[in-house]
């Protein structure tokens, strides 16, 4: 039993870290642009599928993981340019509906390009197989994912807190009008944020592919989870999103032990409780 619990907790943390990457991107876009990015899930899916195709060409997982997310960034910037930007003056409902429409289109695009049947990617050579952790035997690749996501999250945090550009993004979350008043080209900040969010989603998709596999619906499956993370985290909060992502992953995998059918339901119950007890979220100010 202890063996099971420990490995499920680690599983939860690994999944949770991937959720966190998706959630951080979503919360940044939400905080700065004030839109729930309905296309965020499908960007995650593209991260996985582009990695699959790049991998077939370059043959090296790490190289593919380095390249693929930039394809997703291009896609994200394209969306920002042709749609979101045109709709800034409209009510934000229309921005998210545009992104929802795009999500439908992109989801079908995945099926057109890569086919309707799911597939999988092998972990990189050297990280296949498991390692003995004493309490449990655990797949090497998943441990590596934990380390990599931690590094990316830390890097994102450093970018936001230690660089001038990052400071502007944070200022955009706190007070958008102020950023405009300071004479900063808010358009560029929006594009940058959208690009960064897309990159995080793309990396998450790539990293997740050897664990979760690839299915055309993977984007639509992760989107509601990412929303839960943002709600639980609090508007625009990066640390909140990380914590909420891990909590979500762990809650899900622990429920699997006792009541597997409820594993997908439990996170929404947690979210509902959160709203009742602390409506502004873990780290939210408003």
């Amino acid at each position, binding site marked *: 039993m202890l063996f099971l619990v420990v490995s499920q907790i680690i599983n939860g943390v690994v999944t949770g870290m991937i959720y966190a990457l998706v959630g951080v991107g979503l919360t940044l876009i*939400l905080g700065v642009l*004030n*839109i*729930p990015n309905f296309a965020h899930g499908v960007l995650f899916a593209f991260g996985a599928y582009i990695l699959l195709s790049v991998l077939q060409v370059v043959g090296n997982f790490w190289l593919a993981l380095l390249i693929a997310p930039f394809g997703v960034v291009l896609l994200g910037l394209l969306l920002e340019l042709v*749609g979101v930007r*045109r*709709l800034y003056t*409209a009510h*934000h*409902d*229309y921005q*998210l*509906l*545009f992104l*929802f*429409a*795009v*999500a*439908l*289109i992109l*989801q*079908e*695009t995945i*099926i*057109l390009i890569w086919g309707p049947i799911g597939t999988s990617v092998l972990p990189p050579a050297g990280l296949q197989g498991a390692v003995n952790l004493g309490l449990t035997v655990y797949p090497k690749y998943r441990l590596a994912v934990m380390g990599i996501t931690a590094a990316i999250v830390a890097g994102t945090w450093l970018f936001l807190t230690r660089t001038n550009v990052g400071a502007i993004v944070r200022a955009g979350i706190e007070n958008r009008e102020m950023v405009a008043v300071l004479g900063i080209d808010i358009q560029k900040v929006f594009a940058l944020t959208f690009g960064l969010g897309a990159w995080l989603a793309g990396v998450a998709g790539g990293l997740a592919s050897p664990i979760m596999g690839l299915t055309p619906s993977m984007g*639509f499956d992760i989107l*509601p989870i990412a*929303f*839960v993370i*943002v*709600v639980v985290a609090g508007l625009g909060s990066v640390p909140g999103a990380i914590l909420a992502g891990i909590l979500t992953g762990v809650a899900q995998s622990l429920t699997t032990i006792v009541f597997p*059918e*409820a594993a*997908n*339901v439990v996170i*929404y*119950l947690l*979210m*509902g409780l959160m*709203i*009742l007890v602390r*409506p502004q979220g873990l780290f939210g100010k408003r």
Partner: protein
Amino acid sequence: MRDRWIFLLIVGVLAVGPFVQREVIATEILIFAVVALANNLILGYTGMLSFGQATFFGVGAYAAGLLTIHAGLPLPVVLAAATVLATGLAVLIGAVCVQRIGLYFIMLTFAFNQMFYFIAYSWTTLTGGEDGLPGVRRPAALADDLTFYVLVALLFLACLLLMKRVVDSPWGRVFRAIRDNEARAAAVGHDVRRYKLLSFTISAAFTGFAGALYSLLYGIVPIDAIHWLRSGDIVFMTLIGGSGHFFGPIIGAAFFIWLSETVSVVWDRWPMILGVVFALVVLFLRGGVVELIRRGHGLVTARGGAATAP
């Protein structure tokens, strides 16, 4: 009194409907017209975008299906029970969701939708899970598709009139005030959250009722009925018809069902066309078909369209 003319026009269209379309398709259009009209109560009139209407549609459908299969209750009782259940659920979900405004409201309705989807998906012994809930039989008197169409058409008219009354009532006016200016509506003494919950609940009641009819139409509750993509479809229908006009969503529902029935037969990837149409509407025609009519009308009468989408 233009509303009266539109109403007469609708009655006319209902009379010829089954001769233009297959009965089941015409029936499905009417069911979704109710859903879209109900969605417009919150979206167009109260200014709340819900991405979780399928929750109530699905719950209404499952409730009606289960009561028909297991309890064998008479149809009016089944419809009433399904509506009450969807309404009660809306009070609970709504009470949580109206705590937060705008973007949060959207994400919360969406997330709760997903939760109920998973419940339906996982609770296979009750709902049939992924395979859907088959065997929902209509009473013998309604077994014929045309007869069922007539019943649904009458119920549609009843729903239409009832919703029109809601919109024209004091509640409807306060809803519109909240949509226009929430802070002001609160400052003159209206409890905005309560009115939002009221609007949300009324909308869900009609949506649940329509879901119940849907389960009887095809004799099965597919799992798709409660998926959040269905909620997206509902928003799509409402907007493409035109959320700025009471009758607009009816056009949207008709267009959507027609599109899905004709295109989905030809091409499996038809949601892509849906996405393209939706994106174009959002970018270029935010008032939906109603705005197109207004613009056309404006050209004819050379007055210029004064279309205002909420």
